[in-house]
């Protein structure tokens, strides 16, 4: 009797395992989405994946991409790969793919016709290495936004500026009202990113490509780029009183009206949303700093390390499909403040700023961003240069430009 009971109990547990939702597999997904708005967005992805009967094991790594990427890479190269991981698509995972550590997704991509649904096409191009697709883009993030606090301008008795130049002209009046004109956090990538945005806005798309795509060092040392450095000099003067480190703390200065503006990617929008602010009323956004309305097609993508476990490999396919699902795309991107990677989804509930972005995207005014054009090594050198430039008022513009041209000259 006793044995029978035990066997029955075992049988029951075994049966349960198999009868559970179609092979419920735990899949660990690592990412660096930890700020308020980002966490809300990633919860949407987890919800959608759990609904397929699998289980999303959240592997959030705090401290922005710079901190998270080394951890992810060392796990993959060290033989303890996760189920899937976020990277910015482009060159960050290039060598991992070349070393054969990442899963080739071409089959799934052909089956689901990704080439037809993903737009703009350049997104999928940056997932492609040697003709094979290695990542699933989930959103389009563009750096080129200027976020302005309406409250700060009211307090200083100024009309809302329409572009970067007007904003610079307003700086003295803002300072007089006790407001920091421009918030730039202390993390190196923020200063470097702000410079790239200025280059795309003040210099224009062609200038940007000539420097970062063609890596023309003579041009980078020339008068065209000197103009960009002049703008960066304005920016650092306006930002000199920002005493915060993280980008979301800097965004918070704008949300609370302590700072008038911030040059930051559209991920900042998630923060405004979490704080309950309305676009157009509480804050204003200027794509391309109001000078050059282009959207860079940077963004986030998921890469899938090559796994031996078959159940997990199957779950990877499910996750890849879930990520591109129209419903997931809408839910995720609304929370994240980014643009969806497919053009056939309904974004009626999008706010003012996202609509501006979508309109630019529809016009096809897109350009590649530094993640796609430069290696991490070059990016880091640029970060070192610009974090020094922004923090050290006595570093001359000429010296900075000279060093910038050297970095471009040796870039790969």
């Amino acid at each position, binding site marked *: 009797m006793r044995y029978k009971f035990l066997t029955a109990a075992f049988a029951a547990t075994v049966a349960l395992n198999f009868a559970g939702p179609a092979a419920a597999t735990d899949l660990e997904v690592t990412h660096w989405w930890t700020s308020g708005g980002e966490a809300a967005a990633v919860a949407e992805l987890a919800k959608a994946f759990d609904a397929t009967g699998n289980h999303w094991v959240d592997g959030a790594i705090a401290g922005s991409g710079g901190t998270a*990427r080394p951890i992810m890479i060392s796990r993959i190269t060290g033989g303890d790969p996760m189920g899937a991981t976020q990277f910015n698509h482009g060159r960050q995972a290039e060598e991992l793919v070349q070393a054969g550590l990442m899963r080739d997704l071409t089959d799934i991509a052909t089956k689901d016709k990704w080439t037809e649904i993903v737009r703009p096409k350049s997104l999928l191009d940056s997932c492609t290495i040697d003709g094979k697709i290695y990542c699933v883009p989930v959103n389009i993030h563009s750096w080129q936004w200027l976020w302005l606090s309406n409250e700060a301008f009211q307090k200083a008795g100024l009309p809302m500026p329409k572009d970067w130049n007007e904003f610079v002209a307003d700086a003295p009046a803002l300072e007089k009202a006790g407001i920091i004109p421009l918030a730039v956090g202390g993390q190196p990538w923020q200063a470097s990113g702000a410079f790239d945005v200025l280059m795309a806005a003040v210099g224009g798309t062609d200038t940007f490509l000539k420097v970062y795509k063609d890596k023309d060092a003579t041009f980078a040392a020339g008068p065209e780029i000197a103009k960009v450095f002049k703008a960066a000099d304005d920016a650092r003067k306006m930002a000199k009183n920002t005493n915060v480190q993280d980008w979301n703390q800097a965004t918070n200065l704008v949300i609370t009206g302590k700072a008038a503006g911030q040059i930051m990617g559209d991920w900042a929008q998630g923060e405004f949303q979490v704080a309950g602010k309305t676009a157009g009323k509480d804050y204003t956004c200027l794509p391309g700093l109001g000078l050059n309305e282009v959207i860079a097609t940077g963004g986030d993508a998921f890469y899938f390390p090559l796994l031996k476990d078959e159940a997990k490999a199957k779950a990877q396919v499910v996750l890849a499909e879930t990520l591109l699902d129209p419903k997931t795309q809408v839910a995720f991107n609304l929370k994240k403040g980014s643009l969806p990677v497919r053009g056939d989804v309904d974004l009626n509930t999008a706010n003012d700023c996202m609509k501006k972005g979508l309109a630019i995207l529809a016009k096809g005014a897109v350009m590649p961003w530094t993640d796609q054009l430069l*290696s*991490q090594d070059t990016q*880091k050198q640029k970060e*070192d240069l610009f974090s020094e*430039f922004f*923090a050290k008022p006595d570093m001359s513009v000429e010296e900075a430009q000279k060093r910038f041209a050297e970095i471009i000259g040796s870039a790969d």
Partner: protein
Amino acid sequence: MSNSERPSKLFRNLNAKVASIPMVLTALVVFVGGTAWTVLYSFTNSKLLPRLNFVGLDQYHRLWSTSRWLVSIENLLIYGAISLVFSLVIGFLLAALLDQKIRFEDTFRTIFLYPFALSFIVTGLVWQWLLNPDFGVQRVVRDLGWTSFSFDPLYNSSIVIYGISIAALWQGTGLIMCLMLAGLRGIDEDIWKAARVDGIPTWKTYLFIVIPMMRPVFITTLVIIAAGIVKVYDLVVAQTSGGPGIASEVPAKYVYDYMFFAQNLGQGFAASTMMLLSVVIVIVPWAYLEFGGKKRG
């Protein structure tokens, strides 16, 4: 040891020698092997993954023309000089004061040693708040009425490394004090009595009799402090993450950043080889004087 025993010298203390084999192997494979591997790959253009594609001294050329590396070296020198001098001086003074047979010596010793129980990360965060102009010392003094008082070392590029040194001293001097105190207690009472009989003032006794007698303690202390200087990393990360700009960068952080953030192993290896070289330059002459000299003398 007579001559007849010499051939079997290898087998003397055999048990001890067998027991130390694992550690010898670890030292050879992990330390020496790892070091050799790092130096070898510092001559390659390895990016994210190590590759044997030699490029000669390119990585070193680039390293020494990078302003961040030069700033790191300068910071290390300033930080090193400050922690060496001040932790020795303050540590010794505190120990000498505690040695005056004062009341509650145990209590004071505990208080001074307590910061050492904290990691550099915690120390860094505590001092980040204390030195923050909006919450810390500056705010307190301003609230007391001196509204123009300004003290924000962590936000001023030219003095940020001193702000970091303050935190390091706060954390580390307690240990130095304890080492010194142990050294002072090791001095025979009779020496003090003899000095007193001869009418030598106390400060002279310390300076010319006690300190020279404490040479071994000083050497131990010096090694501990020096090791702490070269490897400083976590304190900087917790306090400033190298900022403002690159004003408080240190070599160890350069190595980490270029190996992992910039995905450029070759550059990181070149930088760590330079760190090793600097340690060797300091250690070798010292070891030669210390151990080589003794045999002859």
